[in-house]
């Protein structure tokens, strides 16, 4: 078998393992389904009743932000699962097998797409319940969902890298929560970035989370002409910028995670 075919076959084997694990671990999948439901309801009704936006309902503005927030949160599962496998010696077994070294991380991240699809579908349904609508052509909406999945996949590699660097599940959880909270809240997920003070505004406008949110708002038609238009470059070209951000994360973190995986037990 040549190297590429081996890599693909092994990747498929590990992906199948991870999908089986997701199906059998109701706690993981439960978190991915119930948390978005709770968040959509809380934000739509608590904030939605207080925040007035010119020309559109808060639910319409909010749901794309919640999509991306959930992606950032369920992306942590990728890293968490890796730290657990590391702890249990599963990787030791894998690394004594004649398999492609790339397969473990590829299988993990690809398997986690299942989780993200479930989470995004749940949120879309909840969004429809609280008044979120798609106003664009089907192909644009489809592109919106694809963009969400691309960003989710890229973000999985980020958490994988952090996990393999930190190695311990508890440490990973602490650090990753500390990092992702500002990532989500220093964005346009809940508030209009033009109202943030100067330096914070710059951070929020270049934040990949903001860029992806702006892109899917445009692709789903959840924008209003009455809202102040963002001036920062990434937000004015949100769709290509979101794709670029996702690819950049992949290009940086996929090789980094792969290298860390090689070293994870070699010490």
């Amino acid at each position: 078998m040549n190297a590429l075919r081996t890599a693909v076959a092994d990747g498929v084997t590990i992906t199948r393992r991870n999908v089986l694990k997701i199906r059998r671990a109701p706690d993981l999948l439960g978190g991915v389904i119930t948390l978005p439901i709770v968040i959509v309801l809380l934000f739509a009704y608590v904030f939605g009743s207080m925040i007035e936006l010119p020309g559109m309902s808060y639910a319409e503005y909010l749901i794309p932000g919640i999509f991306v927030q959930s992606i950032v949160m369920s992306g942590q599962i990728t890293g968490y699962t890796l730290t657990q496998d590391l702890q249990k010696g599963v990787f030791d077994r894998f690394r004594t097998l004649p398999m492609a070294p790339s397969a473990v991380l590829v299988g993990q991240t690809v398997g986690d797409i299942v989780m993200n699809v479930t989470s995004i579908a749940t949120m879309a349904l909840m969004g429809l319940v609280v008044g979120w609508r798609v106003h664009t052509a089907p192909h644009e909406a489809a592109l919106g969902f694809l963009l969400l999945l691309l960003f989710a996949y890229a973000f999985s590699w980020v958490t994988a890298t952090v996990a393999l660097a930190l190695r311990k599940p508890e440490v990973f959880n602490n650090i990753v929560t500390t990092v992702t909270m500002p990532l989500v809240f220093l964005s346009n997920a809940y508030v209009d970035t033009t109202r943030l003070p100067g330096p914070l505004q710059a951070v929020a406008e270049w934040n990949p989370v903001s860029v992806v949110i702006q892109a899917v708002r445009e692709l789903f038609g959840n924008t209003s002409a009455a809202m102040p238009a963002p001036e920062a470059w990434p937000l004015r070209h949100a769709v290509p910028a979101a794709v670029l951000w996702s690819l950049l994360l992949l290009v940086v973190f996929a090789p980094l995670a792969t290298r860390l995986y090689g070293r994870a037990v070699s010490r």
Partner: protein
Amino acid sequence: MPPAITAEGLVKKYGDVVALDGMDLSVPEGTVFGLLGPNGAGKTTTARILTTLLKPDAGRATVAGFDVVTDAPRLRARIGASGQYAAVDDHLTGAENLEMVGRLYHLGTRRSRQRARELLERFDLTGAADRPVQGYSGGMRRRLDLAGALVADPPVLFLDEPTTGLDPRARAGLWDVISELVAGGTTVLLTTQYLEEADRLADTIAVVDHGRVIALGTADELKDDLGGDRVEVAVTGAADLEAVRRALAPLAAGEMRVDAAALRLTVPVADGAASLTAALGRLAAEGVTVRDAGLRRPTLDEVFLSLTGNRAAEPAEPAEIEEYSR
């Protein structure tokens, strides 16, 4: 026939701590080689280098003719490894675990499935084959982990403390399984801290301490090195100990050992059973009452302690500390 496993001058350092300090090994094909040593002696580090999980800082090693560093991918196709932490997936069933390993050895789907069933039957896990591993007992998990190491029928098998943490019954069960394997001609490198395990399973034992081999031989040879038979006498009162010592002094072929707390006295003797008869005669003539008397060989425990000293208080090697804290 070339040896199945060789190691020459392996060195591995963790910062200032030297885990391996010139480890040499040679394991003939079809034999069981036991690496015996206290925690931190370098057993696990050796096993991890030989299974390609670690790279040595110096020295070289081969397994099944392949170099552990330069030929790692081909080497991996020829070995099976089972560790002290049963590396099985909790959410997968026993059958799914083994099928996955088969696919990763590139046996193909059908062969992987067939092999999984064979091994589940052989390891007495057929009843639990389609249950998630989560519900398995410790012994069942170890058996499954060991089965995983056998999926590709590898000529060389590494068992790193295969029974650590198991209850005595599960341990005995696993020993039976390993004995059968060996009868089939597989070369096995076994690391253990249980002397009984090495005594029972290994053809050759290497006693390891401070990262190198300090004694090598069969269990019998190691015991002979420590001296031959000994007569052991237990008495009922402390006052009798001195009487026994005086009575048996002429028979002693070496230094007598008196364990006052256990009311027990050990005398190295030269003539085996004849010495025991002589000892009992002398004790009867002196009128000393004994609680128990017998002839025995040195145990591997005694060999081990005399070779390594009491090292219980010393720190474990970093790899092991790391593992314990995980």
